[in-house]
């Protein structure tokens, strides 16, 4: 066994342990902030796996998209809400946990069975490595054009949706006398009045 193979084996073991450990911790920990940070650990170790498979571009994209964007947004959401109270103990919670555990174990068994039973069509070509970016580009504009464009349209829809949601000042084109119709207005929580003293008395 050469040095490179040894390093690869040790790295694979470390990454697998890291990925499984942090993935289990994401599910099992009570603290939602820990779970969110550990999700980043899962993504990072997945990127490490891609590097081991000679797919550097996919690894970097994984870090950029999942760690840099998705995980940061999840953390943002959690921290803006920032509720630091323990969950109310639910009566007979163990029953739900038991059922969930059973379902998860069943799914795991099913997946293991299908992984073992599928005859994987493993290509014997040498990996392209550095040239992968050019290959990916060629595929995007030839046989994978439709999925690529569909994904772009989906992102565009999400972008426009986000802009519409963020824009609260909607000016309906009704003349001053007419009553405004509710259908054209975005749902918005009514502003709370500043003077709370009157409310408290009533």
């Amino acid at each position: 066994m050469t040095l490179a193979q040894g390093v690869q084996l040790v790295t694979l073991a470390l990454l697998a342990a890291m990925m499984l450990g942090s993935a289990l911790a994401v599910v099992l920990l009570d603290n939602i902030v820990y779970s969110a940070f550990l999700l980043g650990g899962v993504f990072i170790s997945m990127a490490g796996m891609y590097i081991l498979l000679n797919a550097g571009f996919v690894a970097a994209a994984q870090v950029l998209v999942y760690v840099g964007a998705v995980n940061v947004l999840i953390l943002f959401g959690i921290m803006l809400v920032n509720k630091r109270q323990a969950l109310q103990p639910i009566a007979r919670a163990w029953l739900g946990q038991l059922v969930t555990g059973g379902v998860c174990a069943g799914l795991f068994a099913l997946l293991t069975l299908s992984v073992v039973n599928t005859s994987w069509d493993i290509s014997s070509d040498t990996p392209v490595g550095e040239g992968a970016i050019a290959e990916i580009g060629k595929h995007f504009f030839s046989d994978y054009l439709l999925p690529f464009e569909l994904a772009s349209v989906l992102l565009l829809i999400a972008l426009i949706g986000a802009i519409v949601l963020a824009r609260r000042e909607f000016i309906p084109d009704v003349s001053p006398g007419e009553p405004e119709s509710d259908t054209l207005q975005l749902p918005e929580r009514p502003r709370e009045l500043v003077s709370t003293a009157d409310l408290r008395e009533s």
Partner: protein
Amino acid sequence: MNPGIDLQGSFIEILTDLGLPQGAAQALWLPFPMVLILIGATVSIFVTVWLERKISAAAQQRIGPEYVGPLGTLQAAADGIKLLFKEDITPAKADPILFTLGPAIVVIPVFLSYLIVPFGQHMVITDIGIGIFLWIALSSIAPIGLLMAGYSSNNKYSLLGGLRAAAQSISYEIPMALAVLAIVLMSNSLSTIDIVNQQSGYGILGWNIWRQPAGFLIFWIAALAECERLPFDLPEAEEELVAGYQTEYTGMKFGLFYVGSYVNLVLSALIVSILYLGGWEFPVSVTWIASLLRVSEDTAWLQVITAAIGIMMTLFKAYALVFTAILLRWTVPRVRIDQLLDFGWKFLLPVSLVNLLLTAALKLTFPVAFGG
């Protein structure tokens, strides 16, 4: 193209001549460039801190540090030793694990990014194909560390600072990536070595700054915002947030943030000089001078000189950019958070998109000048 000096090749050759097997020689070589770059990055902190103090002093008509070492050059070392001996306090209600992990997650990606900074044809830790994309990916990890630090401090100013840092970082990442994309479009490669080689041959006239002036400005502004330098140091705005996410940190944990910010500044300057200012290229093409003096490009002494000039030029360009960053700090007032986000999303993003489209159009029309 000038092959330059292949240090790795010569090193392994010497060791194999001494009777070591090939594999062992390669394994011995591996840590060398990494340690060298780590030391270089650490020394760059001292240089940058000293420059910052001296230039700030000059901008405010003071003298600045002058007692510690000649011209006060050892002031940063004194500060570092002081930070080492400070008590390491973790606030009582802070989350100790996240509080400790935060600074580490901010610093590690910055040092990792030095992997792709070339100082010459073969003077780079590794010339990986994804090159500059790796830097963009790694720099997107830092906001997680900042959020972690801000959240775990259990302090509203820290949390606000962390949230601001993350928002700023993800907003300015997009124009920066688009500016890099325009460069990549012209170089046909993500590798930093290829990007510099594409600019070489015509001296200062071949540098990307002439072909990508808008891209250069966008990238430099976005890089300053990513480094949280004034006028974009909103996450640690003293008047509003005490010190942002750093408020509760003491001792070496604070030192790590400090180190991270300065290493990141130097790294950004290095990347700008590689992408837009021709990297290790001398303003007058060395190949041209050599042909004028009728010296063969393969001459050993010429190659040594070229390599030395290459390292000096890269550092000189980077520090010239650091100088402008420091001058900007003392001449431009801080923007407001809404102005910052407006500027990023409503100005830089559309401009960088237009820049990208223009580059693509120019590349199709003038393939000679724009690397078709």
